[in-house]
């Protein structure tokens, strides 16, 4: 492994050369920057991984059943397991998706589930990302570069190969393809994850397309290529729901495909991930996921949520208000590490303000116990420092639900920060799943 550490700069340079970048909007302007790679991998044992595999597949299967139910029969609401409030007031709920079930009842084909490993050696689920979770390409390219820099490392260590992500993605697209080619639809190079879009297209032998390459006619989606116009059977879109179709959602979207929703509702194209998934990865719905698993699968959840309270319920409101200084408060409408406040970091006055806000709009907030999660070593100059890190596991729902034997480990730049979202700075590590 020392071999790998020596190559840190070389790998970072290679990544810069390949354009492994991460874009971010700061004060309204778009900036691209490198996503720093740390060479010390996170290592997950095979027994830990098999627990994660079972737990994540269970969770994603249940969430797919939840989405199917919400947009059709709504049994879970009628049975009073999830309050209607939390579904219909969720910004991710789209009435335009009512009354239609996507091919094979798969809504979340690619799920990015964020976990942390507590000091108690327990894995906790922090967040589900069922819309367009990004990040798989970073460990993927880091691995292939490190294999090139230091093939010895991978001969000596019994690490599961992660270079099958492209094949897994292809299988996911083929599984729901309604006839025609697979396309990865990118909003273009000014997107935070443009590098990833092009890389994944190459890896999964899909066509990388922008809005001007695609059009809908008579309820079919077509790609206008150099060699003529061909039908598209599956579109892995990397833009958010609201911009997908200007005739169905935001009318002023310039990056969408007019009437794509018509083709979708006619059953002539699979959209990956399906529109409307935001209702299931809402921070408010997160609280209900263990109940959702029990409801649809009649099984106990294998992986735990972080202990979470909903001020919507009176008892949880009381608990939140009296323990606010040691809780983390999250605004359910925000994403990407925004709207997350640690009670311990607030002044008296700020605490009072926050309490008033929670009392005024209980539905808007959740509170959670701060999990004391494990630090991971990160190279800093010539020394090693300890930083908070999480893991984004990628769960792919094709003919089976499978967990990619790798994942994106993100660490915080700031030694005191628990927020490890890539929008907030920080870097990443490769994630090794061991055969043993």
């Amino acid at each position, binding site marked *: 492994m020392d071999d790998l550490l020596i190559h840190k700069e070389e790998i970072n340079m290679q990544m810069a050369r390949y354009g492994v970048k991460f874009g971010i909007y700061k004060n309204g302007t778009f900036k691209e920057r490198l996503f720093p790679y740390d060479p010390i991998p996170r290592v997950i044992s095979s027994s830990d991984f098999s627990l994660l595999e079972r737990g994540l597949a269970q969770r994603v299967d249940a969430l797919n059943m939840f989405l199917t139910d919400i947009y059709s029969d709504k049994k879970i609401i009628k049975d009073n397991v999830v309050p209607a409030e939390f579904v219909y007031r969720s910004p991710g709920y789209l009435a335009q998706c*009512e009354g239609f079930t996507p091919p094979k009842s798969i809504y979340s084909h690619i799920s990015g589930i964020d976990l942390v490993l507590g000091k108690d050696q327990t894995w906790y689920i922090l967040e589900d990302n069922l819309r367009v979770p990004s990040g798989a390409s970073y460990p993927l390219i880091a691995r292939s570069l490190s294999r090139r820099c230091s093939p010895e490392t991978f001969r000596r260590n019994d690490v599961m190969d992660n270079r099958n992500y492209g094949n897994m993605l292809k299988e996911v697209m083929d599984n729901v393809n309604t006839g025609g080619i697979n396309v990865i639809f990118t909003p273009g190079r000014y997107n935070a994850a443009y590098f990833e879009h092009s890389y994944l297209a190459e890896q999964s032998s899909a066509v990388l397309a922008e809005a001007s390459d695609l059009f809908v006619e008579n309820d079919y989606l077509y790609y206008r290529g150099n060699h003529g116009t061909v039908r598209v059977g599956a579109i892995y879109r990397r833009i958010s729901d609201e911009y997908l179709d200007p005739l169905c959602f935001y009318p002023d979207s310039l990056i969408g495909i007019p009437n794509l929703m018509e083709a979708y509702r006619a059953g002539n194209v699979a959209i990956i991930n399906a529109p409307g998934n935001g209702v299931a990865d809402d921070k408010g719905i997160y609280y209900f996921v263990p109940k959702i698993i029990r409801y649809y699968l009649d099984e106990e959840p294998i992986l735990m949520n972080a202990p979470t309270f909903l001020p919507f319920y009176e008892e949880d409101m009381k608990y939140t208000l009296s323990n606010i200084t040691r809780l983390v408060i999250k605004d359910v409408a925000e994403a990407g590490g925004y709207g997350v406040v640690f009670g311990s970091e607030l002044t008296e006055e700020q605490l009072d303000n926050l309490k008033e806000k929670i009392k005024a709009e209980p539905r808007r907030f959740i509170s959670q116990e701060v999990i004391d999660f494990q630090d991971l070593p990160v190279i800093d100059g010539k020394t090693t420092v300890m930083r908070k890190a999480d893991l984004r596991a990628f769960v792919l729902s094709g003919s089976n639900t499978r967990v990619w034997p790798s994942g994106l480990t993100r660490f915080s730049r700031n030694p005191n920060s628990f927020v490890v979202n890539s929008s907030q700075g920080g870097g990443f590590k490769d994630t090794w799943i061991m055969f043993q």
Partner: protein
Amino acid sequence: MRKLSFEFNTRIDFSNPVKEHSFLLRCIPMSLPQQRLLRFRLNAEPLETMGSFSTDSFGNSTYSGRIGAEHTSFSYGITGILERDDSCFIPKQPAPFYRYPSFLTHPSAELITFANEISHMSTDLETAGAIADAVFGHFEYVPGSTSTATTAAQAFSLKKGVCQDYAHVFITVARLLNIPARYVCGLPLGDGSSHAWAEIWHDGRWYGFDPTRDRTADEGYIKLSVGRDFNDCSIERGHFLGACQQHQTSFMKVMEQ
């Protein structure tokens, strides 16, 4: 029961040629027990292919298509005959999303105060009448004072607007008072331009209110489309390439047979 003949035509002129024009129309009257479509003829031009018919999540009939080549105008129209009979209905529950705020109907503090001042009557139907009165009293009808993107809250504080704004405020207030409500685009008896009103759900069915005219929307009203607000059910939506000014002319006529 009333038998109505209807005619609705719209023409959009573009100052410069446009191309790659996709459109989505919701101008075919809804098929409902209360509104039986006896016959209709739809036309749109120019057309390059057949286009396609469908039904959206709100139960509206849609017709969509695409014109790839350059053109300088787009027109569509529908004529037909239908029967309206409000005594025919199949009792059922409203879609749950009609109880919650939508993009254009998020309540402001001002609207919440306004809603709280509406006196609760013995039935939701009577309360809805009171809402229609209050909304009618609040607004001054001023064409051009708002746009299709104006929210209920914006129109409310402006105190001016057109039928769309009256309907949005009515819906926002009804939902605040726990009455399921929805937006309706359609054609009322008479001639002129298309209209918008609102419906509230009460005792197994929808009841129409026209707050712009402070009256109920009876069998003289033809429903083209419904939704949570205007965005869900606008009669025409289009997207094309080309920099130009658009000029739209529209005419409708509904007569009793």
